[in-house]
């Protein structure tokens, strides 16, 4: 049974200078699932993503992805295994065009030596055109990514994640700083993405989480406080306690 999980964090702990950012965290995700993770500041949401993607090594516990232990791998290896990550602050390559951002992200060779000799294939061009349509940036293809608006950068970054075609997407606060209309469009986009990819979304915005319509995990002080549907979770007195004051 345990090997059926796509992602399986069990009893993970990490300490920074005596501060337990993650405390005996156990979190599991089924293949194809989308999960929202909420929690107050300092609950360990971003640290959890750092651990899964190899940026932070846990002190103890295990992180398995499709049955494979991740804690001994570095970031590029984990990315190549099929885990993509979108950061809270949009990080696109501002000096490159929208097109080139997607081109670099496309699943394919990661060897610098081979990239010296590679030229863009018609197939890659088509995949990029498809992605541009999906994130609504077709008209911006030749623009430098640095010239995009904040919301457009967020979408470009989601597009880059799709280009990587990972099995699991980790998305950190995708709607921070977006207008209400953009927020709802992003929820649509993520639901659409979820039809072919598994997703973990970290978000504060409850309207957005409601729009996603998926199960919610509440983190608090580095471990899981409760899990379930948004309605059940938001009715939980412990959650109300954590959010409204201690």
């Amino acid at each position, binding site marked *: 049974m345990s090997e059926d999980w796509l992602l399986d964090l069990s009893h993970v702990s990490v300490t920074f200078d005596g501060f337990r950012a993650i405390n005996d965290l156990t979190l599991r995700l089924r293949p194809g699932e989308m999960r929202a993770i909420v929690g107050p500041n300092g609950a360990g949401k971003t640290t959890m993503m750092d651990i899964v993607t190899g940026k932070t090594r846990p002190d103890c516990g295990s992180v398995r992805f499709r049955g494979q232990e991740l804690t001994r791998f570095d970031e590029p290896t984990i990315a190549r295994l099929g885990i993509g990550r979108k*950061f809270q602050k949009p990080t696109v390559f501002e000096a490159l065009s929208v097109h080139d951002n997607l081109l*670099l992200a496309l699943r394919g060779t990661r060897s610098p030596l081979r990239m010296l000799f590679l030229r863009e294939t018609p197939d890659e061009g088509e995949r990029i055109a498809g992605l541009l349509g999906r994130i609504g940036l077709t008209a911006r293809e030749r623009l430098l990514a640095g010239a995009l608006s904040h919301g457009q950068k967020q979408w470009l970054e989601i597009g880059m994640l799709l280009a990587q075609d990972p099995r699991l997407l980790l998305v950190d606060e995708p709607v921070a700083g977006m207008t209400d209309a953009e927020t709802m469009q992003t929820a649509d986009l993520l639901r659409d993405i979820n039809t072919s990819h598994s997703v973990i979304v970290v978000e504060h915005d409850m309207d957005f989480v409601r729009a996603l319509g998926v199960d919610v995990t509440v983190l608090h002080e580095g471990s899981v406080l409760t899990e379930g549907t948004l309605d059940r979770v938001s009715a939980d007195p412990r959650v109300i306690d954590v959010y409204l004051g201690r």
Partner: protein
Amino acid sequence: MKTSMDFRSVRLAAGLVLLLSAVLSLGSLLPQQGVFSVSPFVVTIVGKYLSYAFLALAIDLVWGFAGILTLGHAAFFALGGYAMGMYLTREIGARGVYGNAHLPDFMVFLSWSDLPWYWMGSEHFAVSVLLVLLVPGALAALFGWLAFRSRVSGVYLSIITQALTFALMLAFFQNGLGFGGNNGLTDFKDVLGFDLHQARTRAALLALTGVFLAGSLMLARWVVSGRFGRLLVAVRDAESRTRFMGYRPDHAKLLVWILSAMIAAVGGAFYVLQVGIINPGEFTPGNSIEAVIWVAVGGRGTLSGAVLGAVLVNFGKTLFTAWMPEFWLYGLGFLFIATTLFLPCGLVGLVGSMGGRAGRNARTDPTPELVEPGRDEE
């Protein structure tokens, strides 16, 4: 930093380099005192500028495109120079001061009886050409592997590149190292049997320098204009982001670093052939810093600007040091500050912003009316 991925100016620069070196070397073969004749002094000095241009190009490749601010690149230039200098030293043969056919003068002077093992093969031109590329390339590979793998970057990397060239300078000052101590290698007679003091040899060397520099420019352009070049820019601007996409930024940096060291080394070899001396002074940290200023003045991240900057600043140095030598360093410092403040994209950037606005640049340039909040209607 903005980088226009449009390298038309590189072709233009390569063409100008070819033209300049061809015209001057042909002119030097005309009878002296003619209208179009070029003096041997000009041939040597332009050969020197163009040799320095290799170093500038090499620095721009790593600094402009991979964000590695190297302050020790002259080390690779000097190593390339020493590798060529060893061959030229062996060519002297029995014509040295001591008339020893097997040992260079300085080894006779130190009463050495045999050539050290690392001088083996240096009597062959082909071996020496390989050493010009392989020795600096191997050092760059080792240094880069250690530094990039440990994620040393920014100022810390700049400081250790300075340490590298400083350490090499101290080592080459030692007589015991077997490279002529503080005198270095000099008093060369000929290359492949051609007399280095003859106008025709010197004209050919200048023309060859031009051909190789133009070739290096086109090679560098090819490297940065493809997908690898985009990866370099991505690594330069957001290194950690590339890791989460599955790239190994240390490998990308290492590749361009080794290539850059080799380009610098070729410049060093042409320098020695034309200037006729190589000594540990070439490893002085100041030399490497000066070369970074050439690139900044010409325009970082443009390739053509590196060559332009190297030629112009060195031309200025020649004039200035003849005119009021004690003020050259102040002039150079002022130039660097002025470039940083008023010409952040260097001379090439200045020309580009005056002429290229309406051209192809507009396509990739962020113009205000295209920067709007929110998303347009679908």
